[in-house]
């Protein structure tokens, strides 16, 4: 069954600002890959539980106590833009 992909929508969800012609190439490749991947649908999985952790470990808990964290100056030194205390980014809201 051919699978149709709205590649521009997918790219927007993934925050990948690519040109239309580049996206068209990826879209065509994805359709071929997905056609192969869709073979998983040939198997009857009624009543089968999905596997997330292969050894079946469940939630891990620890005591809720303060622990040392990473050094703030060392962390901020790696940011493309920062103040002494914060990461800095362009405006999150578009101007009206």
């Amino acid at each position, binding site marked *: 069954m051919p699978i149709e992909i709205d590649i521009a929508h997918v790219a927007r969800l993934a925050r990948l600002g690519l040109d239309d012609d580049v996206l068209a190439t990826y879209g065509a490749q994805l359709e071929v890959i997905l056609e192969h991947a869709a073979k998983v649908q*040939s198997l009857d999985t009624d009543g089968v539980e999905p596997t997330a952790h292969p050894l079946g470990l469940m939630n*891990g808990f620890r005591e809720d106590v303060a622990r040392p964290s990473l*050094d703030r100056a060392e962390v901020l030194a790696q940011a493309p833009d920062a103040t002494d205390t914060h990461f800095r980014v362009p405006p999150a809201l578009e101007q009206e």
Partner: protein
Amino acid sequence: MSAADLTISAARAALDTGELRATELLEAVLERAALTEAQLHAYLTIDHEGARRAAVDADAAIAEGRAGALTGIPIAVKDNMVTRGLDTTCASQILAGWKPPYDGTAVARLKEAGAVIVGKTNLDEFAMGSSTENSAFGMTRNPWDITRVPGGSSGGSAAATAIGSALGAYGSDTGGSIRQPASLCGIVGMKPTYGLVSRYGLVAFASSLDQIGPFGRTVEDAVTLLEGVAGYDPHDHTSWPGEMPDFRGSLGRGVEGLRIGVVDELSGDGYEPAVIARFEEVLAALESAGAEIRRASLPSFELAVSTYYLVAPAECSANLARFDGVRYGLREPGETVEQMMAATRASGFGPEVTRRILLGTFALSAGYQDAFYGQAQKVRTITINEFEQAYESVDVLVSPTSPTVAFEVGERSEDPLAMYLSDVCTIPSNLAGHPSISVPAGTDPNGLPIGFQILAPALGEEVLFRVADAVETLVGRAEMPVLEEVAR
């Protein structure tokens, strides 16, 4: 002979008797790297200064009788394992120049053990690929034939171990990224049971599949390297809190009385005749040594590649959302934060990573999640059930590690699906979380290495290493590549 050609066991003995100093051993390894890096490009970063400091410290520890198994041993780590203050790029432009503010748990354990970390090895960008051609900083080449790929994604770690620019190395294996390059480079490569080695500080690709593991020139060296990093870590709640398997306990015991299952689904069309021939020779040798060879059928293996290419990209698309130009790495300008992120990610990720993010985003998007990611997780359950059934009548399963020997540079890089099929033999162990190892099994008529893969149940490392060690004894240890062909 150079000290760079020593196995880890032999180097340990020489260091402990004082015959060899850690500083001398490191210089031999650095000299080997200087001779071979122009051709191979196994490393993205060589940490001359840090390694020399570690070697001096190791000599002091040895002199004071404080040496452990890895003290003074020069090893390499894949560049997706974070190292405090030392560049960690994942072979991606988006992380170029990043100096992590912490050590991953495996790296921290190696440093505590006195190992000498020579540097960070090349990989397919974010460990996505099977040839190490997808590195943003240039490919790695195969030390057996520099016109061919070393396999991937841990191709740099495999090439460095094979040629002696490290005595052993670590990689990560999500769908075969340790075992396939080990096979193509003629060394031992092992993926532990999921959770035996902490993933804290391993830059995440597909969290439910990723596992750190060792490359060695011998099975015993791989055991020693695994012992150095395995164990529960409170920083990784998916790590195994129970008892560790006895990795070393059954080395040398042979295979008398063991039942070995040949996987029916991992042979036939697409497998090179030399690969099949070497595989069958090893089987015959195992049988002569007292093993019982049986056949095993695991029908869902036919769907393993399909399952993997839904699970892995889905998890990758979520994990790689963190690379957005805010906290580290590249930032491209943008009027708004969304424009900045979209521009940064478009410019920072290479084509294979972009393809998988798009694929995974689609597979998780509204209306498709149940049909793709959800269905793939159910197929994983079926695969695990088939494994369990098979292990009722055999102790281990075996197959070739890769259907082919090392392929030519460029041969598969234009066809994503053909590249994905390189991992047909290795993916099932990742889906099930089981341990698996590739051991050298001779060469094809052109002298290119062929690997023999052994699979065991979860936490079955003891029998896995037992059979691997027997194969190594029966086949004979692999030679090293001819240095003159690689040196320039």
